[in-house]
């Protein structure tokens, strides 16, 4: 579905992503794991057209999308939910959702039905008229996800969706990601929480200083001693994981 071929991204001559290649197949959850500054967000931004790749190719559904402007990439079915959520605080919750749907809607805004929202995001359905600035961290993350889905993407790029959330809220977000996959949305996930991510993802790539140094199925990576000691602390992986 999505393939990166030797993708390089640099900012003002400093290389952030160095010939990274990866593949995401339809219906998969694929994760990119790496330390802060490893280039994870740069890969997502290159895919969604926020930054232009310096070298390499980005192939989505057989067509090259590298270097296309962001609004064209969204129209093709890839939506990124950025790190820090980037909710429009001065707009209402409903307007935040309408913004995302702007490409396929009518010129005159119309109120959306609440029933479809209530199924996945019950917390938001009753706050449609509230200013988004007043939402709690968990609600804001739910709104960011709901807003991403409004454009009906076939592929979601999630950048640190659990950042700054309590363990309980983070668990809700991960549960939601699982449900989105069940609905047929392919997901490329960047997360700090490696253990939880590997429990959720089908496959993962490990990114170090802009280079992909390791990739494999989540189970393989959980068994990899080097990865475990670098990213999960020195303790061995838990024998049974309730998330899977």
């Amino acid at each position, binding site marked *: 579905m999505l393939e990166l071929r030797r993708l390089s991204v640099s900012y003002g001559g400093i290389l952030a992503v160095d010939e990274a290649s990866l593949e995401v197949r339809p219906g998969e959850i694929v994760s990119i794991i790496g330390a802060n500054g490893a280039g994870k967000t740069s890969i997502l931004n290159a895919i*969604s*057209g*926020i930054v232009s790749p310096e070298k390499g190719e980005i192939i989505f559904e057989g067509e090259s999308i590298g270097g296309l*402007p*962001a*609004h064209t*990439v*969204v*129209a093709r079915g890839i*939506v*990124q*939910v*950025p790190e820090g*959520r*980037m*909710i*429009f*605080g*001065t*707009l209402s919750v409903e*307007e935040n959702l*309408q*913004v*995302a749907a*702007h*490409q396929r*809607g*009518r*010129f*005159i*805004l119309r109120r959306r039905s609440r029933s479809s929202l209530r199924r996945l995001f019950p917390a938001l359905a009753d706050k449609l008229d509230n200013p*988004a*600035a*007043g*939402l709690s961290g968990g609600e*804001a993350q739910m709104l960011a996800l709901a*807003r991403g889905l409004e*454009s009906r993407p076939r592929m979601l790029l999630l950048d640190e969706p659990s950042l700054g959330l309590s363990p309980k809220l983070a668990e809700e977000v991960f549960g939601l990601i699982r449900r989105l996959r069940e609905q047929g949305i392919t997901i490329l996930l960047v997360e700090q929480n490696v253990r939880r991510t590997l429990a959720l993802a089908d496959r993962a790539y490990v990114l170090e200083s802009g280079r992909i140094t390791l990739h494999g199925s989540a189970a393989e990576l959980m068994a990899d001693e080097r990865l475990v000691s670098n990213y999960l602390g020195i303790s061995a992986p838990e024998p049974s994981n309730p998330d899977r």
Partner: protein
Amino acid sequence: MIDFVQNTVDGMMFGSSYALLAIGFTIIFGVMRRINLSFGATIMLGAYIGTWLHVHHQVSVWIVALTTLASTVLVGIYVERLCFHAIRRSAVLASMVSSFVIWMQLEEAAIHLLPERTYAFPALFAAVSFELGPFLFRAEQTSMLVLAMIMVGALHVLLYRTRFGLALRAVSENPLAAAYMGINAAWVTLCAFALVSLMGGVAGYAILSTDAQITPFFGLWATFKGLIAMMLGGMGSLPGAILGGLLLGVVEAHALWYLGNEYKDLSAYLLLFGMLVLRPGGLMGQRILSREALAFRRV
């Protein structure tokens, strides 16, 4: 007392045009976080093209009005392409300087078009007045107020009831987030320039009809009045732009009546100076700033 009310009403009528100019500056400031210094000159050149048609081809006043609006929009798009789209978003100072340079260019163009110092401007409404009780209303000033109210109403519907307005507000708040959501910020910005140029064209046409003459200095004048009204109301606030425009009009009308013509502009500058010292954010600016602070804290 009757004089006071009469002056206040006159001032609000004229101030409604200042409000339209201030809205033009405010919307571009909101979308671009930059001040378009050539906004007044854009309107001036648009009106010059209309006047040129009237002087050389004796077209009707309706054609002059429509040409003024259409060419103001085209000049506005030209300014956007040349000095805002072509210069990177981060280069704030460069585009401010270039908007000043374009101002000079537009003024040159107007002088080449019609080289004499002043020209009569063909008004759509005859200089008639009517009385309502003890008060006197001039037709062209009343139509100015009515036009401005229609424009502000239409703008409100556009901003708060349409997809384009929502996209414009989203880009104003956070251009990067808008890009993630698939909004074409470059297109929204271009449309915003066309929109404010149309509003500026209406304001310019109404003001020039009242003055019944046009000079190349109209660009400078319109930029000054619009900027002062915007800063009185508070940068980036639409209600502020309207309030600032009306306040400027009323203060000028009273200064003209009680102090004389030579104090009219001076009183406007003093008003702005006092506002900047006592309330630097303008009338509505403080509230906007605190709302943004709320947004940053919570989200």
